[in-house]
């Protein structure tokens, strides 16, 4: 009889709440009971409030138990979870078949199809779950046809700016250069986002495949993944996957006997939020300070080391293999308006059921918060929700019906960005959040544009005076004027969008800025 398969995530978030200790406890307890088990360290399923989420495979179906700290393992064995599936309700930690848990079943997993399912270190596992089918299709196609497929899919950059990927790729394909590059932006700095990290740790090969397809489509031969230092687990996963891909000729100078060449390397960032901005990232890769470049020239024409460069986010590249495999029409069919396909949303902050929810564009934010998020972790009412990272607007209850769509968010002076959703309950002080936005901008400004470099520090001071009630109407006028200067006087999104959180806090939660009666939700 073959060993019982038990899955314990190796994802950093799961490890951060004790998954390693849980895996060890399972191995120890199984040995004590003389049960033959094979422990697979998979990625996370994204049901993060259940981490460490342990799955036991019975007759080809995986049954979920969570959260399982190490000290709950003996009890699960005693309850018999290793001999038959414990039905939901029969044990406090039993949730039934993983794929029937509503939180998971209601998602449309395209780019995250394999995350949590496979062993991220196994190329064989990747191949057994439709891996490298997109590349196989791409190897049969002309570069222009690959680009056309990506364009037809409607895929837009998932890093936050939502620029159509096909247009970027087409520009690089048409550009002349002795060398061309494919660069992956894995500098996921937005608070409230972790989809890049989860994808890399759970399914690193899909990113490698997507980048390889981008290289074939544009004639690039060298690629870099710029990964933030805060993700050491992702670094290990990527480096192991790259080595395996080289060994099996999915990377290197003769990809699958096609004669095509693509060399890929991981480079680490060093703690600079601004390096998530594409031109700063390129400067950093060149070994310089991560300062924003003027555009034009576009990176697609003169990018890394002055050469034509495709630069996209992790999720953008990870969406490409399935587009090539299943066809552009299949991908394009998901979504609404000009937002096509799916977006992995990340429910974060003070939320009861935090995790990753990959769904087609179009669902309302409230539906996502209610049906998936389940309200706040603290049990108090939701007061504000920040969507799109530190440069995204704080939305009040009245705006929560906005559909998850790039254009709909732009209309309410917000942005969907990289899909991060941070929930705050009614204890939040929105004046403090606005002040933090300015402080963050001051800490992370690259220093190139004066409004951002100096205006952010002045912004903190103005908010302090406003809240202290020193000539408040004048301070408010000054703050609004400063925000306008930042919007129009900054080269990149950091200075240009920091007014979003500041002004949304001021406009929707004015009471928090008023001294002395800084009343909250009771109002």
């Amino acid at each position, binding site marked *: 009889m073959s060993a019982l398969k038990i899955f314990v995530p190796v994802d*950093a*978030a799961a*490890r*951060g*709440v004790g998954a390693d200790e849980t895996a060890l406890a399972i191995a120890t307890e199984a040995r004590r009971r003389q049960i033959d088990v094979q422990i697979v360290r998979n990625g996370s399923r994204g049901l*993060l*409030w259940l*981490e460490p989420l342990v799955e036991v495979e019975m007759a080809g179906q995986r049954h979920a138990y969570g959260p399982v700290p190490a000290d709950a393992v003996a009890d699960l064995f005693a309850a018999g979870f290793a001999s038959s599936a414990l039905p939901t309700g029969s044990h406090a930690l039993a949730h039934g078949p993983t794929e029937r848990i509503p939180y998971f079943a209601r998602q449309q997993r395209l780019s995250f199809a394999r995350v949590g399912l496979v062993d991220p270190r196994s190329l064989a596992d990747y191949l057994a779950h439709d891996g490298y089918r997109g590349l196989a299709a791409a190897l049969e196609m002309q570069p222009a046809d690959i680009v056309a497929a990506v364009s037809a899919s409607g895929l837009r950059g998932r890093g936050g700016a939502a620029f159509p990927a096909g247009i970027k790729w087409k520009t690089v394909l048409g550009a002349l250069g002795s060398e061309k590059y494919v660069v992956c932006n894995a500098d*996921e*700095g*937005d*608070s*409230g*986002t*972790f989809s*890049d*990290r989860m994808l890399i740790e759970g399914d690193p090969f899909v990113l490698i495949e997507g980048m390889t397809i981008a290289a074939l489509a544009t004639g690039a031969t060298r690629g870099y993944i710029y990964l933030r*230092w*805060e*993700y*050491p*687990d992702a670094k290990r996963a990527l480096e192991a996957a790259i080595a395996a891909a080289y060994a099996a000729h999915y990377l290197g100078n003769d990809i699958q006997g096609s004669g095509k060449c693509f060399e890929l390397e991981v*480079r*680490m*960032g*060093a*703690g*600079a*939020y601004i390096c998530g901005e594409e031109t700063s990232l390129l400067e*950093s*890769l*060149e*070994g*310089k*300070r*991560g300062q924003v470049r003027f555009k034009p020239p576009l990176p697609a024409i003169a990018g890394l*080391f002055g050469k034509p460069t495709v630069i996209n986010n992790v999720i953008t590249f990870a969406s490409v293999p399935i587009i090539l495999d299943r066809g552009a029409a299949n991908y394009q069919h998901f979504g609404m308006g000009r937002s096509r396909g799916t977006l992995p949303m*990340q*429910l*974060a*902050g*003070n*939320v009861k059921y*935090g*995790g990753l929810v990959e769904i087609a564009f179009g669902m309302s934010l409230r539906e996502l918060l209610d049906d998936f998020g389940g309200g706040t*972790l603290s049990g108090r009412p939701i007061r504000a929700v*920040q969507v799109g990272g*530190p440069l995204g607007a704080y939305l009040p209850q009245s705006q929560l019906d906005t559909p998850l769509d790039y254009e709909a968010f732009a209309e309410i002076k917000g942005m969907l960005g990289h899909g*991060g959703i*941070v*929930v*705050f*309950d009614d204890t*939040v002080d929105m004046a403090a*959040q606005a002040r*933090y936005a300015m402080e*963050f901008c001051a*800490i*992370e400004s*690259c220093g190139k544009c004066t409004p951002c470099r100096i205006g952010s520090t002045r912004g903190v001071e103005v908010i302090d005076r406003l809240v202290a009630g020193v000539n408040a109407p004048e301070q408010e006028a000054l703050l609004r004027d400063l925000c306008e200067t930042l919007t129009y006087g900054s080269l990149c999104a950091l200075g240009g969008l920091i007014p979003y959180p500041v002004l949304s806090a001021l406009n929707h939660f004015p009471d928090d800025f008023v001294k002395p009666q800084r009343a909250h939700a009771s109002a």
Partner: protein
Amino acid sequence: MTNPSHRRVIPIKSEPPSSLSDADRAAVDSACSRLKHLPGALLPILHAVQESLGFVPRDSVPLIARALNISLAEVHGVLSFYHYFRKERGGRHVVHLCRAEACQALGAAGLEAHAKRTLGIDFHGTTADGAISLEPVYCLGNCALGPSVMIDEELQGRVSTTRFDALVAKARAAVKP
């Protein structure tokens, strides 16, 4: 008209002055010779130096500049730009505490105050016993399970003040990883 023998010759210093210990210097030299051929080698070199020494000593700057044939200002400019690079020797363990919004929503400000009070240091400081350095960090990508800290390279989620104390005590008791 000119007599070459009267020309004042400015000696080129092939050996930049450095107060590094032999071992530290060897680590810097090894990082440089191993990585200087890479395109855009400066960040990989700084990472390698910090990985082996725990920080990037000021006196390593001239050595790195010489290896890459760039100016001291360029190396210093890059070193000082990135928050991750330590310019001074830190504690045996580095605690990175997340200050970003998702952790704020779960009480990161309170955890920060607790950490500073119990360790007796501010951000960028090191405890008197040389065990712990405290650094701020802006998102560890663990936003659904905050508040988060990273101790050395290990991410920790749902860090209450009690759990923080336990993690710090565990780090103090452990030898350098």
